[in-house]
């Protein structure tokens, strides 16, 4: 039996402790889950095992031998394999070529295809899966790609296999298939560590469950003895959810009506109202269709059926341009790819959505441009030394404020925020919330999509819960407890 052990591991970052004196061990022949909310330290722990970062104090041990790697590549050679949620396969190469990438068997100078396929077949047998070794990755469903990725790692016969959220982009059936294949590996002498956000998967797959919270080890449980409530309590503790200031309230006037909105398999029959000044949250797990819903309402993506009404008027032939003109705004999920123009300056990024407002007969007024940019820098407390500074030189939080400021300049009536606090620090997060509340006081409505459930409870008046593309529940946030919201999102039946 092999054992992977964390011995009193701490990891300090300037201003935060990512891990505090964590000691835990994982044995081979079992599948171990590692869970915790965002920021609980589970990624940090995994990165220490896989050689991506070094602990500040403490050691990682494998069968009593200390693990010290200078790079993930070295860790991999020493038998610590990590499979990340983003696939690293070449889509237009075959399954066999992907598994044996970089070490294809040869006959003289040529690839020996016969033994390539035979070797791949042998690997595929390990997980009892029937994928033709000659199939192209691009032709496979996502769960089979995950299998290929896992087999690629397993073909090096690692001692430790770390699976970082392999199920986040899979449907329920695909998860079942993947799990039955992963189960096949248990008989081998490999330590499997499985990271997930989906609680219900724990009972289907894993043997033990290790819970981290705020960098501390809360406990390790045998899944046979664990109940839903045990796990939730370990994950959340008795946290006090901060409440927004009382004075922020919505009115009764309905601004936006969504009726039966459907887009293929992304979301179906979504209906809700948004009132003036209201802050509405959309909760749900990754892949529940939240981002897709926002994008379709905003006109960034099309939808198949249903209708959108704004102030009673049905919106036809909608596009981001049209939605902007009638008063909508979207701060997208991926700041760098979708929210900002990294080549442009802070000033230009702050005035892009409001370009109409600073032009007269299509000529840009430099004075107006500077005014609008300066106003947002002041109001949102964006830290810049110079408006001409490239936006790419700002920190994550300040970049997010530029995205928001850009839209505030267009004087919207309804703002959509997709994961507004992703990758920004606590202070910036609070400032973003303040902005949202401030807008609400002025009668501007917001819809917020976030994976951080505490955040939704803190900021929103009302929360819609989405699961597999549908709205399954609606709650007022002051009547809702964090654990209940989590359960609603998971869709787990009470155990």
């Amino acid at each position, binding site marked *: 039996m092999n054992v992977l052990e964390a011995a009193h591991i701490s990891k300090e*970052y*300037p201003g935060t402790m*990512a891990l505090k004196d964590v000691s835990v061990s994982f044995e081979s022949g079992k599948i171990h889950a590692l869970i915790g909310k*965002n*920021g609980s*330290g589970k*990624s*940090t722990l995994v990165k220490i095992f896989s050689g991506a970062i070094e602990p500040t104090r403490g050691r990682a041990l494998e069968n009593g031998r200390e693990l010290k790697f200078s790079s993930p590549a070295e860790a991999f050679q020493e038998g610590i394999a990590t499979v990340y949620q983003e696939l690293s396969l070449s889509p237009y190469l075959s399954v066999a070529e992907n598994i044996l990438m970089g070490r294809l068997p040869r006959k003289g100078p040529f690839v020996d295809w016969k033994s390539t396929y035979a070797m791949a077949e042998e690997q595929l047998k390990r997980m009892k899966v029937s994928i033709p070794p000659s199939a192209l990755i691009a032709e496979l469903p996502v769960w089979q790609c995950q299998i290929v990725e896992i087999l690629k790692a397993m073909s090096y016969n690692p001692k430790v296999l770390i699976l970082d959220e392999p199920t986040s982009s899979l449907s329920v059936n695909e998860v079942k298939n993947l799990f039955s294949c992963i189960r096949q590996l248990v008989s081998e002498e490999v330590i499997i560590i499985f990271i997930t956000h989906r609680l219900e998967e724990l009972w289907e797959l894993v043997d033990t469950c290790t819970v981290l919270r705020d960098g501390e080890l809360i406990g390790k449980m045998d899944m046979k003895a664990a109940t839903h409530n045990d796990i939730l309590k370990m994950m959340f503790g008795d946290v006090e959810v901060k409440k927004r200031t009382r004075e922020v309230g919505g009115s009764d006037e309905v601004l936006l009506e969504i009726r039966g909105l459907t887009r293929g398999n992304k979301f179906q029959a979504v209906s809700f109202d948004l009132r003036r000044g209201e802050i509405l949250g959309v909760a749900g797990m990754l892949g529940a269709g939240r981002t897709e819903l926002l994008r379709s309402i*905003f006109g*960034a993506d099309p939808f198949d059926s249903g209708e959108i009404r704004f102030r009673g008027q049905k919106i036809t032939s909608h*596009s*981001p*341009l049209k*939605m*902007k*003109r009638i008063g909508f705004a*979207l701060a*997208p999920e991926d700041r760098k*790819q*979708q*929210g*900002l*123009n*990294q*080549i*442009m300056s802070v000033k*230009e990024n702050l005035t*892009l*959505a409001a*370009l*109409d407002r*600073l*032009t007269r007969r*299509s*000529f*840009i007024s430099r004075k107006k441009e500077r005014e609008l940019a300066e106003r947002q820098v002041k109001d949102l407390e964006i*830290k*810049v*030394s*110079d408006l001409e*500074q490239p936006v790419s*030189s*700002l*920190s*994550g939080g300040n*970049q997010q404020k530029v995205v928001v400021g*850009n839209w505030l300049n*267009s004087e919207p009536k309804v703002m959509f925020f997709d994961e507004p606090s*992703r*990758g*920004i*620090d606590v202070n910036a997060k609070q400032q973003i919330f303040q902005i949202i509340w401030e807008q609400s006081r002025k009668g501007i409505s917001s819809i917020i999509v976030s994976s951080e459930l505490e955040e939704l409870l803190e900021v929103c008046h009302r929360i819609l819960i989405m699961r597999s593309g549908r709205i399954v529940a609606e709650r007022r946030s002051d009547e809702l407890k964090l654990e209940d919201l989590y359960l609603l999102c998971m869709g787990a039946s009470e155990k």
Partner: protein
Amino acid sequence: MSMEEDNPGTSMATEQTFKKGGAAQLVRIYVKKYIMELILAGLIFILAFTAPNFFTVTNLLNILRNVSIQGVIAFGMTMVIISGEIDLSVGSTVALSGVLTAYFTGWLNKAYGLPMETTVLIGMAIAFIVAAGAGLFNGFIRTQFRIPSFIVTLAMLNALYGIAGMITRSFPITTLPLWYNKLGAGYVFGVIPIPALILIALFLLVLVIMNNTSFGREIYAVGGNEEAARLCGINVRKVKMVVMMVVQMTAALGGILVSSQVMSGSHTFGKGYELNVIAAVIIGGASLGGGRGKPWGTLVGLVFLGIIINAMTLLNMSEYMKNLVTGLLILLAVLLNSIKYSKD
């Protein structure tokens, strides 16, 4: 710690370097920023002493005249490249527009007895309209079917040469009025070449569009990050179609200037222009990835290329040697630009 967390350390460092910046660093920043201008100034300085008759008013104006035809196209191309697209079909538009102008001048003159002095204007108008149509077609195929503009305009390049050849039946058309020759070969005040004036006028126009209008800003936004521009409510399709149309119209202008200089329209005009034009724009600091580039840079790139070719002629270099040197200098300029945009 979530995976996508930004690294606060590095961004803070960049913010600080921006604030501090001693004198030495300032010099470095400016040298980096104006590297092509400095090289051009150095080149002029050296040539003024080494190449006979280089630093004379006549020769310098001559250089402007020589680059003017490809130059007008280069300003259209600057807009296209900043928007993240490319147009390889401009060379064939040069041929076709010269041919169309000459053909309609003669045909309208013969069929309706109108004087050639008038019919040439109609011919020019037709050349511009056809070019605009070709550009809109390029832009439409590009945006509607998401086919890279490289492919679309490569196809257009062949097609337009084909049409030009069909009209001329391989013989240059020479039915053009005398005054037409002034456009490409005339002088104002006896010294300033008219095509050089047209070049400067177009430079100023594109400069104002790119720097002072919302349309210019939209071109930069679309080229820098198309998805972000779309989500900001910019009509990406309109921007791309308009710039693809504009570059074709500048190519038509170039074609009219060529045909006016040689007083005929031929399907052989404009061969290889697209690459020289793109070279000038890239030397001027534009990025084929889109979002970067300046009209001023393109002017510098044009003059740079013009001076090198002129100097090599004055120094009596062979045609092959000229090609070799030009090739190496283009490579050098692009390397310097890549340093310019790299981080410290």
